[in-house]
């Protein structure tokens, strides 16, 4: 319950002023300036020019080179999302079923990596994939493969490392939904004679779907705009939009084009997230009406 005070109470306005000013000044203005920058032109010798047109966007849309990178970004993000669902959703159920103290311990194992630097975690994958090739040694040792697989500089490698980085978000999302479930519903299903599998498929799964959906939106958005992991695992040849932006800014020095690419990425991520969200709301409204 809020204290409903006078309509034009100065207190909340004063309280929200510092944060409002800071964010308005240092978030909205820079973003707007970036939008303007994306309309400008650039050349190596004259720098950024004060002309305003849509040339950068025209170039992005007409050049298949950019199309390919956007497509790759979408593909890796989608595959990463699928992988996190396949690993994260069952694990969330398993974690919920655990008893103390195991549950607390494995929650730290599952969610703790969120607090570890992305660079460190990706470096771990680079070490596993790369020159020392522990993964390949293990796989060959187990007789699963004959020749070493290439993980570094491949989409497979990027997807695996990204899934590892983003997995906690999926687990959090599914667990949040699971927590709202009435635990007796599962027992009710068993009491009616359903098997474990049937109970999972008919009772648990439909109820955690909203969590999986919400998790998917977060994971997709973060995977599509991820930078550090594709940069380290993908290297120069396997560019995604974020690493392309980095290259445009720090190697080609073409800031306007880089700004256009970054904003396009932003807009696409927002559209996909909002679209999925509305789809999910329509789908699950009945469940939570």
């Amino acid at each position, binding site marked *: 319950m*809020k*204290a409903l005070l006078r309509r034009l*109470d100065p207190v*909340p*306005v004063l*309280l*929200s002023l510092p*944060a*409002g000013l*800071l*964010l*308005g000044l*240092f*978030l*909205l203005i820079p*973003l707007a*300036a*970036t939008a303007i920058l994306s309309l400008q032109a650039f050349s190596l010798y004259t720098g950024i020019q004060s002309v305003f047109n849509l040339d950068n966007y025209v170039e992005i849309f007409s050049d298949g080179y950019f199309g390919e990178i956007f497509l790759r970004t979408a593909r890796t993000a989608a595959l990463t999302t699928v992988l996190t669902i396949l690993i994260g959703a069952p*694990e969330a*159920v*398993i974690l*919920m*079923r*655990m*008893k*103390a103290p195991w549950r*607390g311990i*494995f*929650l*730290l*194992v599952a*969610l703790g990596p969120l*607090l*570890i*630097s992305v*660079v*460190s975690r990706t*470096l*771990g994958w680079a*070490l596993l994939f*790369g020159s020392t090739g522990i993964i390949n040694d293990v796989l060959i040792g187990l007789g699963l493969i004959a020749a070493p697989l290439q993980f570094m500089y491949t989409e497979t490698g990027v997807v695996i490392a990204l899934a*590892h980085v983003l*997995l*906690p978000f999926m687990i959090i999302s599914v*667990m*949040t939904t699971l*927590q709202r*479930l009435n635990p*007796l519903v*599962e027992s009710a299903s*068993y009491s009616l004679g359903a098997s474990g599998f049937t109970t999972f498929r008919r009772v648990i799964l439909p109820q955690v779907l909203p969590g999986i959906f919400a998790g998917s939106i977060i994971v997709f958005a973060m995977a599509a705009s991820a930078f*550090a992991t594709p*940069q380290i695992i993908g290297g120069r040849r396997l560019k995604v939009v*974020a690493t392309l932006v980095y290259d445009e*800014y720090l190697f080609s020095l073409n*800031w306007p084009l880089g*700004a256009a690419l*970054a904003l396009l*990425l932003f807009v696409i991520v927002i559209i996909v*997230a909002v679209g999925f969200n509305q789809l999910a709301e329509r789908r699950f409204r009945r469940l939570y009406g």
Partner: protein
Amino acid sequence: MSSSNGFWSLAFHTLFVIFVMAPIVVVCFMAFTPEGYLSMPTNGVSLRWFEALLNNKEFVGSFRISLALGAASATVAALISIPAAMAIVRYDFPGRTAFLTLCMSPLMVPSIVLGVAFLRFFSQIGMSGTLVGLTISHVILIVPYVLRTIMNSLGSLDSALDHAAASLGSSAWRTFRRVTLPLTLPGILSGWVLAFITSFDEVTMTIFISGPGTTTLPVRLMLYIEDSIDPLVAAVSTVLIVMALVVMLILDRLFGLDRMLIGRSPSDPDR
């Protein structure tokens, strides 16, 4: 969830734990190699790479900058988020929803977009590469985390506490100082610690805006990795991992890590 995990569930869980831990464990192991190149420490364990790290002026300098940046931005973020959270949780005012959306919006903007936006903005106002500029950008990035934690903390307070204090003659400021603040302190501190580690680890945005004198640890690590991967980066990563562990323990003690990340867990017999 009333039933317990069967054999297949536990097998899956084991693979999951291996998947999650493998890259982290590998980094830590390799940091202890006695060799001059990357390898598992099969011939004994050595601290030579940590020694090398301590003697590396650039990495040590970056570590200090990251500490300063994390502490400064987390503190500023907490200082502006406390009143903002009070306004949002305690009052209804025109534009409240818009204000909340504004405060949470940095979560929606990809870090890379923030990076390019700040790079341009700071270079136009003559602040590029400065610690102040970096701090402002990090504050904006972490405000949503701090604000959400403090809002949760404030929201779980009985609003009658405020009324009780007021009825006893307490001024709004005294009520805040004596009642609201002490009761939300664990939330504020948790938000601070979460913000600190988020800022400390940030790389995507910072790589665009850090200057030669303000290169943070993850950025330096990232630039170093672009050039070469050797046991030194494993040692740096190990330090980052250990820091994360410390933060994890603090958060767990203060607020409950699971409660912070997935909300209340009344069914958890642990607490």
